[in-house]
């Protein structure tokens, strides 16, 4: 009888020990101790994020230390991620850094590429904001010469789409076509895919567009600013206003 009880108890202890070890393994207990001993808080914070991607805490930390930024600073984050302004958060808004600003994921001219589905073009990546859209460029085949087309632009987020623009009729020609837009689409979905649909065109089997690209410029022109720091697409620049 005693043996059975003892065996039963051992079984319980073994099960609990297995669970504890599973938790240790799952949460990387030993590895975490090593990392805490090896890296200080700042480097662990930087390692938890990317250096110049998404919140780019690595880059922010670098410029914060180098330029002794101890006040809130304007951060324009063009990556699809939360704005990491909290990294510089201080309550006194009036004490903001006046002469510098930070750009994360900055592209002076962005070319948005599309893949073609059955009867529309879908942007390969998500677009944070549809501002400063300059032009649409596409190649048309020889059968498309002197055809009139119209196109619609949609934003789509997880399958749900919203029409944001319908163009006038455009006359297209064989080869590369450029349609100037120069538009800001405000109050639309953030971080959405762009869909471009050509009307009365794709129904015609002889007409086939390829290499659709949408050109987007940035509201900030770097040539007007002093660049203090640059790492990939992350910048610390002068603020001109």
């Amino acid at each position, binding site marked *: 009888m005693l043996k059975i009880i003892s065996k039963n108890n051992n079984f319980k202890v073994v099960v609990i020990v297995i*669970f504890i070890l*599973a938790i240790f393994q799952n949460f990387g207990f030993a590895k975490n101790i090593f990392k805490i001993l090896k890296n200080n808080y700042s480097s662990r914070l930087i390692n938890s994020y990317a250096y110049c991607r998404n919140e780019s805490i690595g880059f922010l930390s670098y410029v914060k230390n180098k330029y002794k930024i101890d006040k809130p600073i304007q951060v324009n984050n063009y990556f699809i991620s*939360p704005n*990491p302004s909290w990294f510089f958060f201080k*309550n006194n808004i009036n004490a903001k850094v006046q002469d510098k600003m930070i750009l994360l994921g900055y592209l002076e001219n962005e070319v948005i590429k599309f893949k073609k589905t059955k009867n529309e073009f879908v942007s390969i990546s998500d677009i944070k904001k549809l501002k400063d859209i300059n032009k649409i460029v596409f190649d048309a085949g020889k059968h498309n010469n002197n055809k009139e087309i119209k196109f619609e632009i949609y934003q789509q987020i*997880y399958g*749900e789409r919203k029409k944001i623009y319908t163009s006038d009729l455009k006359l297209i020609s064989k080869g590369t076509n450029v349609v100037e837009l120069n538009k800001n689409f405000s109050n639309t979905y953030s971080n959405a895919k762009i869909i471009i649909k050509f009307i009365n065109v794709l129904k015609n089997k002889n007409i086939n567009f390829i290499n659709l690209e949408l050109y987007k410029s940035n509201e900030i022109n770097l040539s007007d600013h002093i660049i203090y720091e640059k790492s990939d697409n992350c910048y610390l620049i002068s603020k001109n206003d």
Partner: protein
Amino acid sequence: MTEIVSIIFHIFFLIVLSHLPNKIIFFSKNEDLHIPISIVLLSFVLLLMSFLSIDLKIVRYFLWIVFFINLFFIFFEKKYLYLKNIRFLLFLVIVLVLSLNLAVNLKLGWDAQNYWIIKSLNFVNGENVYNLKNLPRPDYPYFGSYLWAVFSSISFLGHEYFGRIFYIYLFCSSLFTICNLLASENNFKVFLFLLLIIIFNNNFIFQGYQEVLVFSYAIFLTYFIFEFRNSLGDEKIISLILINFFILFWIKNEAFIFSVIFFISMLLFLPHKKINFLIGFILIILSRIFLYKIFHFDLDLQAGNYEKINLSYLGEFVTIDRILTIAKYTIFSSFKVPIIILIVVSNFLIFSLKNNFIIKVLTANLFLSLVLFFFAYLFTTFPLSFHLITSADRLLFQIVGFNIILIILLINKFKIKKLF
């Protein structure tokens, strides 16, 4: 090494804080209730201090005084006998393991970066509750961020994540507490606690999301109602439960709605003293509205959403397509919070086996919460799939907090202890 020692001391500090002297929690002889009651009472005092805009430095002094008083009484009242049992030590080890994990993986979640840490830094930087109206989402309650600020600034190193260690401590305490309800031997309680830690391993616990607080305080609430089910007419118990509701009101707007649902479910089946509860509950709702006005917070429960709710738009929202989308993503979200399935099954089983006050309350609450969940998405004006993908799992996690006790009750009913 300094940092690891600081983490260990911080956990020790939290443990001592959550053991108020017996003189204060005299109405419960159950030692397992000391941590939840202490946490709820202390949280309430901190909430009041935040209303009064008391400087964080004074709040820190207050907590140190409470720490030393508690420490004295832990020895004077021989509470260390409870603290040194193997089950509690194991609980501490788990809190430590999770805290070390947090110390290495410091990344904050999306909402935590956009709203919650900013509210927390508001207090850390010496501002008070009145300044929150100038920060993003003044319609969101702030108490979770306040706790984050208090416990990060009281730590020796002052790092932000020490505030989040309190979230971990709270989360583990709630699971530890609920496991104590098992009518089984200690081994099985330990086993279930560890199992729940493994099951609940998700980002909500570490990344500064407020759902973990709602989950934990909701567990305390249901535990209190279960434990004091025979003395729910007692003013002290009513006060404790209302305080717990009030704390939930100040963490998230969803928590406020779920609390109202829970209260309605409770009121429906409460055998006596309904009027005291009702008056108390109305008073805490009114005080929330009043304080929101005082602090100039927006009273919208989700600003920017549900703007088109009226009969003329009904046909636009109530469509088969939308219903199927909700069903699809609810199933997907259930994989992230699998325990919700177990809760629904437990509820079904236990309701057919036993039908007392607690079971009725929990059944009504679970049903109403899931109905609310469904309608919240059916009438959302955000893109439906996007809204579901980004929030359904977190909403389910909160519902789990209010109903997880059903699993424990079912285990007790079947006396599963014999199997282990």
